[in-house]
Structures are given as structure tokens and as C-alpha cells.
């Protein structure tokens, strides 16, 4: 006897199935192009990178590599195994951290200050807003040329040397040196042109996002602060900055990642800086080397390293990714939404009791 089914039951199942299909069908249609590009050009290469860092991969000859029992990672973390690589990696690490520590706050506070000023809507503020963003649309090559021209030596008729008589050999001399964990770290003058180049054009995006955020701070909060007797400075601290906290967090996140991955400016201006004799032939063996420079030297710039030490480059970039992940993790933890406690209400009850 043919299987019988209550019509209503069948209708419900059918609509459920179509519903399911329609929903997932639609999401597929919307998401597919993006996810496909994301998977093929990010996730697979990423895991291919991990795969490379675990094998002695030869750049030219894929497929013949064998497991190298974490050789590259040992090299980065174990000083005795390959001191040259160890020293140049961790020197680059120190350089990156120091520069980021100096640069990130500036790259957040400067655009914030300017955004607040522009938000006062002085006459002609539209023009100022355009001019402030302009330096950050300059491509790396163009701004590189300008700053090299600025900081060239007297004999090459650099602008600073000619017009202001500042004779320091920017790309050769060292500014000062200090010792850290028993090593002396020399800070080259070359960091100053790099600092100015980052200062000049690095934070345009932040400026736009912050000035957009400032528009959304509700006006009546400023009036309330006025009535409560705030000075302008305290108003900025208690109304403006908390008002644009989400934008600030976004800018902080992108700026930290941006300056951890500092490479373009160093490459264009000082090519890794005056070389340090002890690690001269190592990847990124200079005084203005950064983590990304170490990786790029291995992966792209130096052909001999590229063909045989590609695994080390991949390993170094994984360590870099891990390290950047930790820093952004900390940053996200610090700027998370505070949970509401119960401390004060308890204190109130006690106080109420006593009276």
C-alpha cells in the first residue's frame, strides 16, 4: 500500500526544505565571490606559507621539500644555532618596537588634534581638511624622492644641507647608542628622515575617520558639560574623546599594524641604513632594519637568500604575525567595553544603613 502522508505534514516539510535552500542559496550568492577570493588569495597562501616554513623549500623547485624539524624557528629563537640571524632578527625587532612606540601615539594624537581643530569650523575649514589629507595620497616613490632630496649630504646639494646648513650625514652617522640585554644598540641618524616621512604622510586615513566620528558626538552633551562648569580641555577629555571611542579604537588597530609592518620608508630612504659590520651580509643587517625588512630581504630583495632561504622568510613572517596578533589582542583587551560592576551600589547600601 503506497506510503500515505498527511498533506499538511508534507506541505510543512516541503516549505521548510525550500526555505532552508532559499536562505542558504541567497547567502551563497551574496557571499560566494568575496569568500572565494578571500580563500584562494589569503587562506590557502597562508597555510602554504606555514607549510613552507616547516620544510626546506627551494624557491625554484616546489614539491621536493622534506620536513626540516623546525630548523628555521630554531634559528630565530636559539642564539647558539646561527648567531648572525639571531642578532639581526632581534635587532630588527627592537628597531620596529622602538619606532612603533614613538610613532603610533603621534599618528593618533596629531590627526585627533587636527580633527578637533577642524571641527571648530574656523573660516575656510573645508580647504584645510583637504590640504591635511593631501600628503597621505602621495605614493611612496614620490615622497621618497622628496625626502631623499631633503636629507642628502652637502656634496650632493641636499636641501637641508644647502639652505639650513645642517651638515649631519644623515644616512651614515649614528645618533646615540645604548645597551640592551648586554648588546649595544646603535640608533642611526637615518631614523630621523624615516620619522619625518612617516610623520608627513602616514596618518591621513586616521584624520578622515576621526573627523567623521567627531560629527556624531551629540551637541547637547557639550551644552551639559558647559552647564556643569567644564573648561574646554576637560570638555575634550570627558565628552569628545569618549564620544569617538569606536573610531579611535579602529584607528589604533590599523595604525599599530601599519607601523609594525614598516618597510617602504626604510627601503626608499636608507635601504636598510648604514650596515653594521658584524651582521653586514645577514638579511636586514643595517641600522634602520625592521622586521618587515628582514622578511623582504629573504623573500624578495636578495636573490641568493630568496632561492635557498625562503623557508626562513616564511617562518619569520609567521613569528611576526604571531607577535602582531599578541599586540592587537592586548590592544583589544585594553579598549574593551568595561563590564558593569556592583561595587558602588554595595557601598551605597552600607552608607545608607549607617545613616
Amino acid at each position: 500500500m503506497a506510503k500515505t502522508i498527511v498533506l499538511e505534514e508534507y506541505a510543512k516539510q516541503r516549505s521548510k526544505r525550500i526555505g532552508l535552500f532559499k536562505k542558504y542559496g541567497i547567502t551563497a550568492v551574496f557571499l560566494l565571490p568575496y569568500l572565494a577570493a578571500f580563500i584562494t588569495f589569503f587562506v590557502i597562501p597562508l597555510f602554504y606559507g606555514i607549510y613552507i616554513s616547516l620544510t626546506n623549500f627551494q624557491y625554484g623547485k616546489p614539491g621536493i621539500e622534506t620536513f626540516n624539524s623546525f630548523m628555521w624557528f630554531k634559528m630565530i629563537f636559539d642564539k647558539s644555532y646561527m648567531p648572525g640571524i639571531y642578532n639581526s632578527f632581534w635587532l630588527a625587532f627592537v628597531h620596529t618596537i622602538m619606532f612603533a612606540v614613538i610613532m603610533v601615539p603621534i599618528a593618533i594624537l596629531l590627526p585627533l588634534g587636527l580633527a578637533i581643530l577642524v571641527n571648530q569650523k574656523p573660516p575656510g575649514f573645508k580647504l584645510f581638511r583637504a590640504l591635511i589629507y593631501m600628503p597621505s595620497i602621495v605614493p611612496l616613490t614620490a615622497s621618497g624622492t622628496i625626502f631623499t632630496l631633503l636629507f642628502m649630504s652637502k656634496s650632493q646639494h641636499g636641501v637641508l644641507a644647502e639652505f639650513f646648513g645642517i651638515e649631519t650625514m644623515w644616512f651614515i652617522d649614528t645618533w646615540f647608542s645604548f645597551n640592551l640585554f648586554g648588546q649595544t644598540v646603535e640608533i642611526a641618524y637615518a631614523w630621523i628622515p624615516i620619522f619625518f616621512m612617516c610623520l608627513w604622510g602616514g596618518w591621513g586615513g586616521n584624520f578622515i575617520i576621526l573627523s567623521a566620528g567627531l560629527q556624531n558626538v551629540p551637541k547637547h552633551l557639550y551644552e551639559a558639560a558647559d552647564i556643569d562648569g567644564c573648561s574646554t580641555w576637560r570638555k575634550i577629555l570627558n565628552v569628545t574623546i569618549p564620544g569617538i571611542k569606536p573610531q579611535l579604537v579602529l584607528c589604533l588597530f590599523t595604525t599599530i599594524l601599519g607601523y609594525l609592518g614598516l618597510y617602504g620608508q626604510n627601503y626608499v630612504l636608507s635601504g636598510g641604513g648604514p650596515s653594521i659590520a658584524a651582521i653586514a651580509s645577514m638579511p636586514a643587517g643595517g641600522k634602520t632594519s625592521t622586521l618587515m625588512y628582514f622578511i623582504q630581504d629573504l623573500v624578495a630583495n636578495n636573490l641568493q637568500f630568496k632561492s635557498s632561504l625562503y623557508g626562513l622568510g616564511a617562518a619569520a613572517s609567521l613569528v611576526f604575525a604571531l607577535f602582531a596578533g599578541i599586540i592587537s589582542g592586548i590592544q583589544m583587551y585594553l579598549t574593551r567595553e568595561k563590564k558593569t560592576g556592583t561595587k558602588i551600589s554595595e557601598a551605597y547600601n552600607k552608607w545608607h544603613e549607617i545613616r
Partner: protein
Amino acid sequence: MRKNVLKFLSLLTILALMSTTLAIVMVGCGDKNNDNKNDPTNTNAIVDDLPRGEDGKFDATLLENVQLNLWSVIGLPDQEILLDLVKEFNKQYAGMIEIKVTSVGHYDYYNALDSTYANDYSNFPDVCLMHNEKNIEYALKGYFYPLDELIDKTGIGIDFANAYDNIEKTTIHDGKHYGIPIDAHGYLTQIRQDIIKKNGLGFDGNTRFVPQNYEEYQTLLEGLRALADSGELWVRNINLDQDHSWYQLKNGNPNLDAAAQATVDNFYPVFFHSQESDNLTALYVNGGSLLDANGKVAFQNNEGLKQYITDHVNRFNSKLYGDAGNKEAAFPTGQVVMFSEGPWQVANTYDIWWNNKQLSTAGKLGVTEEDAADPIYANPYTVARPYYMADDSAPAETASKWYGNGHVITVTKKVTSMQKVAAALIFAEWLTQGQDENGNYNLTEWCKAGHLPAWQNVYESDSYQAAAAKSITLTAMGDPADIIALESTRYATTLIAGLTTAVGDIQSQLLSVDGCTVELALEKLLATANSTQEALNLLNLGIK
């Protein structure tokens, strides 16, 4: 919150597994004729499809339009000469062999080679015309075939005996030739002999103006410095249609106003030597070598090189050496008397400009009759080999030699048909040993651009000697036998880079505020050598 993290981790692991499998699959399909790449020495991938005449020997005329894709590293200006030669070859072998040349600048030739080899194998060239230093390095990476066996198989008569073995040695590894040498050239020193003559600093009674050895070179520099400091030094500007009248340093250049004068008046006998070839000349001339017997970095303990570096420090400190600045601009205006640069510029640019007719027509632009008449004043610019590199500790046989690199033709592993190999070898033989109808070698045409032939018979041929007599560069470069080519090593890039960084580091230290002492310079040399050694150990690790 934690439930969310667990879900996230599980998703991540699924993603990881999926993509690693995908990676391996992708890598698998990526391997192209792997065995061909692994062992650099085997040639068994080549299919023997040679058209043989009745007597079983290969006959070139039977080839039907074999296409060859040649990458050349030659840049302008001698790029045109090469293209003419290839056009000539294609005409001669029309229908049989046709060579298509892609010229890739020396700036990114090897980068292109690597990336096409790794990712875009179908576009990999068949024949490479590249620097001879990198020959062994890239051969051992599995890019080129050993040629001796192939030459015998095809029976094309390339007899390496004719080649100068001091140039040929860079193409040999374990007794096998990986490339056919074409030419060789070193960095020449450009000299203002008119200033030397005018100020009476010439040798053998002010008739010879090229210092032949170390002492002569040193006395010349000190003489120029003394005169420049006292202001009595006579200089003049030999740029095209500039005023060529002599003037003494102390009363300044008459036709430049004060502002221009301020930037021009610092005078240095010689600018820093240009990096690569001068360092290697100093090393090889004094019997040194980059690697010692058991493959360790050895350039740092060569006495000659140390002397070369101490000279750098002392001469710079005593203002005999000037800053690099713009050599091509300072030389004609009389700001510097000597600087060293590649030979390719000499023939068709510097020579034409600076030994121009204006200097020999009296009366115009401040040229006196006596200047016009005198052969030295008429063409003040001359070129010479860096004789002065040899230190007194230099061994006799290398004392009068100098370092030179050159070009070489190689056959890449892309080629899998014997016909193509034969065609390549024919071209190589044509270029290096081939003669046109009235007997002068094709190689001579190429050498006119400023290269010494790597083959003895071509050097001794009268077609070459006639061309050499006419060209100022070739006469200056003299006999190819004096050239010491780079020892054949797979670490050429790192070693040369190590030496260059060491010398460059010292030169920039000299420019720095607190200058540089000899001890510091030698210390830096030692440190850089150690780091190069470490780089070598690293590469060994990687290559294994």
C-alpha cells in the same frame, strides 16, 4: 563568551586541514620535470632528434627553422651592436635557425630568471647571454646544461683550447663547462693627461702620463694635491662648447660667477674607486682569492687588500680621494683628474665628447695655438688599466694583471631537443669563432663596444688588432691574458656583496663625522668577512 571561542577554534581547524590538503595537491601538480632540476649535471632529458647527413654526422643545413629564445643582459649603448650581430646570424642561417632576443636590464635580469623559472616555466629562455660571474652559481641551481658532452655529440667544433683559460675558468665546475665565454672587460681609469702635463707631473720627463706602478701613482696624487693646496694648479674645462682657457685654482674659474664657483672649487686628484671591480682587482692582483682551499671566506687575510684599504683611509684623510658625488660632471670641469668607470661608456660617449675638435681648433673658446698643436692638449682624455693596485707583496705572475668580468652564453635546461642544443652551440661558435667572408671575426665587431675577446685566435687576428688600434678602450685594456676572472663558485652573489659591503662600509665611515682610522677599517673588514662566512654556512644549510 567561551562557547563562541570554541566554535571559532573548531572552524579554524577545519579551515587549516582543508587548505593544507589543497596546498599539497596544488604543489603536487606544480612539479615540472623535477628530476631535470635536481641533479645539475645530468643531460639525459634531451631527446636526440638531430638530423644526420648520410655519413651519420650532424649537418647544420638540415635544420628546419629551429626557434631559440635568447635573454641578453646587455644594456644600452652596446645593445645595438649585439642585435645587429644576431640579425646577421639569422640572415645567414635563415630558414634553419631563428634567434629571438629579449633584453632584460642587469638591474632585474636575475630576478626575472628566478621568478620565471619558479612560477612561469613556459616563458623560461632557451639560451642565456649573461655575466660570467653568475654562470656557476645559476648552473648549480639547475638552470644550465654541462656543454662538453653536448659539443662532442653535435660535433660542432668549439675548441676551448683557443680560449684564454684565465677567463674560461669561471665557466668550469668539476671539469665541466657550463657556459661558452665570449668577452672580458675590467673597469678602466679615466685620466686628464692635459692637467698632468700642464703642471709638469708626467713621468719619464713629462712624456708619459699614466702611472705604471704604485709609487708613480702615489707621487702623482701628492703632486696634484700640493699644487691644488697652493693654488698654482692649472686646470681647464673640456666640456663641449664651454670656455677651454686654462686658469689657476687660486684665481678661480673666469667664466663661472661666484655662486657656481662656490660649488665647484673643491678639487680632488681622484674620486673613490667604483665599488666592485676595483676591490676584486686589488684582491686578485695581490694573489688573494675570495674562498680558500676548503671553501672558507679568505679575502680578509690578503695583505694586498689590507694595503688597498689602508690606502683608502690614508689617502682620504690627506684629501687625495674625493667624495663619490657626480664623477661624470666633475671630471671635465677639472675638479678631478682620475676616476674609474666601466669601459662601455668610454668609446662612444666620453671619448667623442672630451677629445672633441674644439680643443684642437685654436683661437675659439680660449684655445691657444700651443694647446691646439700639442697632441696631449688636443685630446686630453685618456684611459688606462689600474696598474697601481699591485702592492710590493704581490706575487710576480699576478702583479701586472687586473680583474675583469665578461659575458658568457649558456644553454638552459628548458631545451629538451638536441636540435635546439645544436642551434645554440652553432650560434655560440658563430659569435665567438665565426668569421665573415673577408676573414675578420664576428667577435671583433662585438669587441668594438669595449670588450676584450675571450679567445686567443680572435685576439691575435689582424681584424681585431686593427680595430684595437683605432679604439682607445681596447688599446688601454691591452692583452686579455692579463685579465683574472672570478673564481668559479656557487656563492658569487654573497661573496661579491660581502667584499663590496666591507669596502663601502669603510668608505662611508670615512665620510662620517668622526672619520675612520686604519685599525677601525681593518676591524670592519674582518667583521664583515666573518658575517659573510656565516651567510655561506647559512646558504649551505638551505641548499642541502
